[in-house]
């Protein structure tokens, strides 16, 4: 409960900071909107030339892409930890975090909120509606709820993986360039999983389970019941990965060496 109030406290603080720079926020809003629409056009153009890919129609692929954007938006709003090593380890900001009575990871998430990331979800939903209406998808009453659960599951998978990567900083001294690489790999989850070879498929399912951010949960709404099992374990995988990442984090914090003055 305390953590929920703190989340809202930080969120309102975030808004206030943002509103201080009035012109900034306007400019940013429009540039976000612009980049999202460029994204949308890009998707339509790229997929305009493909009709069928590994047994998936163009509209299905667009739908998966649209779905992927939603958990990704949630992830980018809350798990803005790609510069964790520089900011918190090298500069020693973690010292400050550790002297406050809130879980260290949660504090970092709060401090690094980037709520405008959530705008991406609008694009995602727009893309899904576009593709879904072309395919004539119908929704049952429980689908919106499942959608929310899948989105949370997907965001947790994403967050979990990146937290685990951030934890590397606790063990390795050197900065790693693994984060940008991971962003690339994460993109693979946007495409139908069966277009890849077996090994990549295995990796994307069980090791770096980015497939649970895009293709698996989305295929549920597409009525692809051969993947039903994977669709339904999305929240489970999310919880498991996220829990693992937190356990690893807690171990890592014990190894934190601090930065010299």
């Amino acid at each position, binding site marked *: 409960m*305390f953590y929920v*109030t*703190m989340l809202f*406290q*930080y969120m309102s*603080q975030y808004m*206030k*900071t943002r509103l*201080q720079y009035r012109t900034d926020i306007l400019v940013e809003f429009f540039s976000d909107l612009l980049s999202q629409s460029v994204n949308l056009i890009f998707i339509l153009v790229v997929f305009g030339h493909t009709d069928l890919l590994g047994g998936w129609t163009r509209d299905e692929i667009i739908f998966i892409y649209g779905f992927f954007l939603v958990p990704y938006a949630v992830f980018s709003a809350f798990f803005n930890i790609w510069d964790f090593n520089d900011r918190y380890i090298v500069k*020693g*900001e*973690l*010292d*400050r975090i*550790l*002297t*406050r*009575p*809130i*879980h260290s990871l949660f504090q970092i998430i709060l401090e690094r909120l980037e709520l405008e990331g959530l705008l991406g979800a609008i694009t995602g939903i727009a893309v899904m509606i576009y593709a879904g209406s072309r395919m004539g998808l119908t929704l049952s009453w429980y689908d919106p709820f499942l959608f929310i659960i899948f989105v949370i599951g997907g965001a947790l998978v994403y967050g979990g993986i990146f937290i685990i990567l951030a934890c590397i900083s606790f063990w390795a*001294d050197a900065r790693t360039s693994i984060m940008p690489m991971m962003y690339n790999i994460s993109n693979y989850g946007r495409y139908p999983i069966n277009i890849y070879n077996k090994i990549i498929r295995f990796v994307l399912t069980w090791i770096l389970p980015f497939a649970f951010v895009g293709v698996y949960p989305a295929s549920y709404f597409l009525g692809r019941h051969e993947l039903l099992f994977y669709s339904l374990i999305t929240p489970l995988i999310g919880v498991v990965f996220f829990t693992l990442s937190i356990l690893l984090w807690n171990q890592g914090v*014990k*190894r*934190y*060496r*601090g930065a*010299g*003055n």
Partner: protein
Amino acid sequence: MSNAIEVKNLRKEFKVYSSRKGLKGAFRDLFTRNEKIIPAVNDINFMVKQGEMVGYIGENGAGKSTTIKMLTGILTPTSGHIVVNGMNPHKDREKFVQTIGVVFGQRSQLWWDIAVQESFRLLKKVYKVSDEQYDNHMNHVIKTLDIEPLLDKPVRKLSLGQRMRCELAAALIHNPPLLFLDEPTIGLDVLVKLKIREFLKEINEKYQTTILLTTHDLSDIEALCERVIMLDEGKVIYDGALHHLKETWGEGKEVHFQFLETVDLQSVKAATAGLPVKWEHDEKEQVFIAYIEDQDELISQLIAQIVAAYKIKDLNIHETSTEEIIRNIYEKGEVRLG
């Protein structure tokens, strides 16, 4: 609740990898690295009672910050035993930090972009301080530190002195019984320093707040602390009263004379023949310096004899400064006190 801090055989080791020279060395480093274990804090023991103000001093790299970081739960000790406020700092970290306040002089605790009072408000929520407690306590703190006019400014627009006062206030929002200050006066002007010292004294008296202070500025320690713990290469080399340190290590007093007439070293020596004095003549300043034991009797006798013999222009009595004492100790190594 008599001991705020108990430290037994506390040790922290860091693994250090030294890299070899040249490209060839860099390749060898890839496979086998030169690993060295360096004890930053080497089996130290001490206790601090509730309500004490203790100065924790040492040269750069002596292990001060490392100790403070272990005491505040930031670092996990390699071995040893720490109890602070009756808790193990790195075990129940979240519960523990509720009972301490921390100021790192070189690192800001406040949010850079938001107004000071917003930072305070957020911290108030973080520490679960009720409105009533906050008003009672913080109004006073804000007034004493004179930061009222700064409250609506964002931290990035404050000067260092202004920021430090706000940092101090921020560390006290939850009115902790124990306060850690790591170089709180670094880079501050005299007025701000004085204000901060006065404030620390006041909260120590008012709330019995225990304060552990590290600083390079010994005047801070002299103004605030009765007790000092001195650290060198990860070991405690002195733990005791500041005045005791001065008595044992302060090597007497210096009396500086300037004369109206021309005098030479031989004749002043002759004039004070019966006294245990060492004379020195500083030719540049035209000053004669008498080194003498710190006894009031002897000093007045010395002055009386000199004044009887010559006309003097100026006279100064110097005490060995704490700074000199500490420099002496570091040069000579461990302090051995009976």
